[in-house]
């Protein structure tokens, strides 16, 4: 009975908006529910989500606007979404900061290194552990899964790194944490869901496991690799703690985030005495606040530009990981 009523309306679906909120797509089961209460629900829902978007985007757009605004002019306040007095001085200053640029090089280096090496290494272990008749599959899996729950803590780890002579080297950024249990589980689950015959037929043809991994599994696993590489890259791009703990004074090994942190703490000290600050910077057309905004933009842009393209992948990866954990 219902369906008969709906038929004519469904055909016009694209032409006629249903109510003032715009063309709401109707499916068979949904149409019945357009009661006044539902209209209110949709309106409130739209309002809440619009507000969520505004709250998420405003701070970022505001920082962007400040970063392109003249430093002294920004101190007057009132800059919201658009710069008032456009200036590129802030970015010039940021790109002229020696340490920040060194940090950028180190950050890019550790991020790329980790995203490639950690991924391949973890994937290789995941491949081995995805083979169901491997004798040590269970104990080795448990060995790594337990690391999610058992953590020695900061001090023993710190002392170990010192014993291993990793402090004050670039390697402290990329050697620890090479096999993350969560990533391992996601990869193992994905590889485990591939048919065994894939591997077995290659074995019959005489391929060894390294060959199977490289020639067969790596190409097939590209989507999940993209996810894991993104997870690793985000982690390494955002890290600063290892820098602060292990290489605090070596500026050749500084990272972008750590430099940004130093910049921030110098600013936060100054804002408390901002009244006296205005006078002292009359001669320079830049202020810490606007330089920091520019540095924030430089630091966040690489990943912010990248992630929407990888969205499809990381959603899949998270779903696999979450279900199996």
């Amino acid at each position, binding site marked *: 009975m219902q369906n008969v009523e709906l038929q004519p309306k469904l055909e016009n679906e694209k032409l006629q908006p249903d109510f003032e909120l715009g063309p709401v*797509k109707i499916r068979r089961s949904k149409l019945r529910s357009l*009661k006044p*209460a*539902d209209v209110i629900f*949709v309106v409130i*829902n739209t309002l*809440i*989500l619009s507000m*969520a*978007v505004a*709250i*998420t*985007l405003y*701070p970022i757009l*505001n920082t962007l606007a400040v970063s392109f605004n003249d430093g002294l002019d920004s*101190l007057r*306040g009132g800059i919201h979404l658009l710069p008032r007095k456009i200036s590129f001085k802030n970015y010039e200053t940021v790109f002229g900061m020696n340490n920040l640029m060194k940090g950028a090089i180190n950050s890019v280096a550790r991020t790329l290194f980790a995203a490639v090496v950690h991924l391949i*290494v973890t994937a290789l272990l995941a491949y*081995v552990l995805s*083979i*169901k*008749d*491997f*004798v040590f599959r269970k104990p*080795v899996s448990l060995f*790594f899964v337990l690391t999610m*729950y*058992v953590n*020695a*803590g*900061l*001090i*023993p*780890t*710190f*002392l*170990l790194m010192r014993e291993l002579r990793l402090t004050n080297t670039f390697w402290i950024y990329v050697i*620890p944490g090479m*096999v993350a249990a969560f990533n391992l589980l996601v990869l193992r689950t994905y590889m485990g869901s591939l048919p065994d015959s894939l591997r077995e037929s290659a074995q019959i043809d005489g391929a*060894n496991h*390294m060959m199977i991994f490289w020639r067969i599994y790596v190409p097939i696993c590209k989507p999940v690799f993209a996810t894991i590489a993104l997870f690793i890259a*985000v982690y390494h791009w*955002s*890290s*600063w703690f290892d820098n602060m703990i292990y290489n605090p004074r070596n500026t050749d090994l500084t990272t972008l985030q750590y430099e*940004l942190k130093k910049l*921030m703490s110098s600013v*936060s000290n100054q*804002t408390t005495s*901002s009244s006296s600050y205005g006078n002292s910077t009359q001669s320079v057309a830049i202020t810490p606040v606007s330089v920091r905004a520019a540095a*924030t933009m430089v*630091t*966040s842009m690489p*990943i*912010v530009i990248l*992630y*929407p393209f990888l969205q499809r992948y990381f959603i899949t990866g*998270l*779903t696999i990981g*979450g279900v199996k954990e």
Partner: protein
Amino acid sequence: MTDNGKDINTAEENLSAEELAAKKQEAALKRREAAYASTSSKAAKSLLDQPRPTSREERKRLKAEQRSEPKVELNKKTLLRQKELIIITIPFVLYGFIFYYLPLGGWLMAFQKYKPQNGLLGSKWVGLDVFKYLFGEETFRLAFRNTLVMGIINLVLSFVFAIGFALLLNEVRLRKPKRFVQTVSYLPHFLSWIIVVGIVRDMLSMDHGIVNEILVNIGIFKEPMNFFSKPNLFWWIVGFSNVWKETGWNSIIYLAAITAINPEMYEAAALDGAGRFGKMWHVTLPGIRSTIFILLLINIGNVLNWGFEVQYLLSNGLVKRVSETIDIWVLYWGIGQGDFSLGTAAGIFKSLVAIILIFIANSVAKATGDERLF
């Protein structure tokens, strides 16, 4: 949510009820056959021959059997056959041992008066003295309280917001706006805490911060407030910073769970006269219940791990009593002051509490008959 998820969802909706039922039956049959094939014991087979099991226990047992893997005997022949796999695994185990398990040996320091020049074996043993000192220290007790309270606030807020956001987003029927909101919501996850804390500072700033501007303009405040000097606000600033950063990201898993809800349920609810809100409340939310429970269980063990980056970066002298967490305390006393024994003891205490929390959560879950971790 994803393109895939959505397509599956619509595809399922297009199937009629009978087709769905038939499909399900087929799948169940397949599962049983698989279980049958992989069982060797006679008793288990006779159990499987009974009609489709309905009780929770039976379903669980079936699942376990279906999962059961081919048994490989540990003997010379297998070892030889799998020598390549074993050779690949050895470096990993060595690496894991050195970087994950070897530091555990450092726990011995907590029972010593550890001096780096004497080493782990040459230092003087003091029993539980370090722990006694630790619990006598007021700043540590405060740090423990702060860590626990902020962890719980974060846990509750992040769950409520992520679930709420997923439910509301799921109600958006227009594809493009939905995608837009989703993409925007993931953005803050990709910003580091350094940046997020900078942003939070800017937004709450006394001079021209948007929050103060709005609150003064609509007359709630007479003059801008210094949010960071108020100890009673600090926990909430931390909690909502985390909500801002992670709500979108955390909602991914719920949105995925929602796509798995049987569309028939919505049709049944509609027949009962449920509106959009009613369906969301009575179908969608119960539909992701088990996902919520599992994630809650996983995260309870992590409650104490939420006490570092934000607090460390946001804190200042005025709010130290409420902002200092165990990790910050360890950093200060262990690395800063070089008291390795004390720092290690605090770390051990944190690990123990985390394990106790996991066990409590798990047994509560067991008692209420819901999902559990182990």
